[in-house]
């Protein structure tokens, strides 16, 4: 029986390792490709071991005078992505926590309507209203701007629901006590609600950071100037249809572009898993 148990555990590990090799292979292969010369890549004889051009390739990608795409340095693109991601992440968190607070802790006319309207946004993902949303943004002069890249994406029902659900779980006594102490709604919000929401905010941060950083369709529509592009938009513009794609550099940029969200997920894994599973309840 004991032997059997040991064997079954070892087998589980073995199969999991194979699963992980399959799952991480595309990322690993990008790393291998980014360490080779373009000639080796194009010859199709790439092995599964890294080549010797690693430093050279990344130097070329990061050098400020050499440009990734038509006159834009990778630093500018990374900065754009970071600004947009921060705006989306913080914007979404702030407006959602505010609206959830209003809905849970107040009684007012049209409360149900407000909640229904927020719920309704769930049914209108950007993909189903591409053209009119674009027209709206362009009439507000939002094209090629950070506002345009972030503001239309910061209304979110999911985040509001997460906070609403969390607020519901806060004991009523806390609010009663605050009221007896003479605290107004604003003080209660800043002194009690906000500190209690720390974990929810951390969990949401991971999910929203990935959401913001990985946007593609919207930045593709709203930016025409290359200097306003995100790193992911620029990456896909490096791929040429005529066979002149510098694959060794493309793979390097791809790795750089996926690193920030991967780091956030891995380093904040505990909150991420909790947030993901809680936000879907």
């Amino acid at each position: 029986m004991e032997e059997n148990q040991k064997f079954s555990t070892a087998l589980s590990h073995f199969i999991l390792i194979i699963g992980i090799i399959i799952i991480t292979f595309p990322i690993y292969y990008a790393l291998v490709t980014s360490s080779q010369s373009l000639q080796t890549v194009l010859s199709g004889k790439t092995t599964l071991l890294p080549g010797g051009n690693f430093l050279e390739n990344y130097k070329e990608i990061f050098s400020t005078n050499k440009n990734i795409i038509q006159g834009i340095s990778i630093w500018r693109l990374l900065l754009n992505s970071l600004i947009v991601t921060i705006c989306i992440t913080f914007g979404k968190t702030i407006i959602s926590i505010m609206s959830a607070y209003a809905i849970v802790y107040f009684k007012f006319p049209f409360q149900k309507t407000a909640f229904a309207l927020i719920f309704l946004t769930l049914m209108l993902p950007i993909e189903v209203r591409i053209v009119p949303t674009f027209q709206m943004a362009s009439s507000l002069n939002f094209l090629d701007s950070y506002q345009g890249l972030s503001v239309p994406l910061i209304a979110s029902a999911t985040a509001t629901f997460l906070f609403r659900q969390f607020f519901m779980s806060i004991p009523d006594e806390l609010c009663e006590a605050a009221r007896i102490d003479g605290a107004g709604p604003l003080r209660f919000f800043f002194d009690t609600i906000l500190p209690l929401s720390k974990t929810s905010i951390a969990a949401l941060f991971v999910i929203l950071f990935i959401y913001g950083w990985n946007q593609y369709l919207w930045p593709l529509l709203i930016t025409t100037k290359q200097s306003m592009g995100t790193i992911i938009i620029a990456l896909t513009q490096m791929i040429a249809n005529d066979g002149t794609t510098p694959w060794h550099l493309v793979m390097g940029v791809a790795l750089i572009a996926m690193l920030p969200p991967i780091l956030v997920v891995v380093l904040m894994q505990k909150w991420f898993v909790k947030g993901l599973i809680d936000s879907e309840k």
Partner: protein
Amino acid sequence: MEKRAIFNSKLFPYFFLAPQLLISFAFFFWPALIAIWQSFQEEDAFGLNTEFVWFDNYIEIFKDSNYITAIIVTIIFSISVTAICLIFSLFLAGLANKIKAGKIFYQTLIICPYAVAPAIAGVLWFFLFSPSIGYLANILIKNDIHWNPSLNGNHALILIILSASWKQISYNFLFYLASLQSIPKSLLEAASIDGASPLRRFFDIIIPMISPTTFFLFIMNMIYTFFDTFGIIYTTTHGGPGYSTTNLVYKVYVDGIVNLNLGSSSAQSVILMIFVSFITILHFRFVEKKVHY
């Protein structure tokens, strides 16, 4: 459920709701209304005159063979991705749930694809499967398979299915792992003492216990393949060859932004809105039943 202790303030709640509602009106409801309005209109070739045409755009959509193709592609695409993700991640989660050491190590590596942008996932898989330079394409070609996703529609479809599944396995894995961990150990032990084989225990206890998670993941995977795979399709196949990998969302983009056919694109948007509404209601009905506050 409502809070017992609530604040009395006339203006405060409106002030706190305002930012979210303003943005929702400007970028969600107004564009949605415009889409509905435009779906009943037709522009002439020069964009000078618009005419109210009732349901003509809708009728034309369903007469368009490319739209029917897009529906079929969407169905094959989403069912395949859903099936691959559910099976593969349940398998991995089952194994990860069994072991004691190293669980976090495996989990960390399995969740990485979740953080990779769809567009980047598309680039990685496009490269792996590029004839003559991609590693996996070369293996196929060496084995006498004439792999060429830019000419062969089926190959292109396989390519987007693989890329999309790869990204979504992490999500499925985390939910299955959480669900498996919540099954009481005593239940499985009791069955084991009664002489149920591992296979029997899997089908008679584990599968029914995780069925709410499976249903939830089924819906989430459908929503994902419908709406979050634009970046993958754009970077791997551009919807081609022909219309063989154009799903419904990609077609809204092509007709609206590339072909500038606003009437048709809007009508397609409206159809998708109805579909999402249906899925959302289904999802929340189910959630209400499952979670007891």
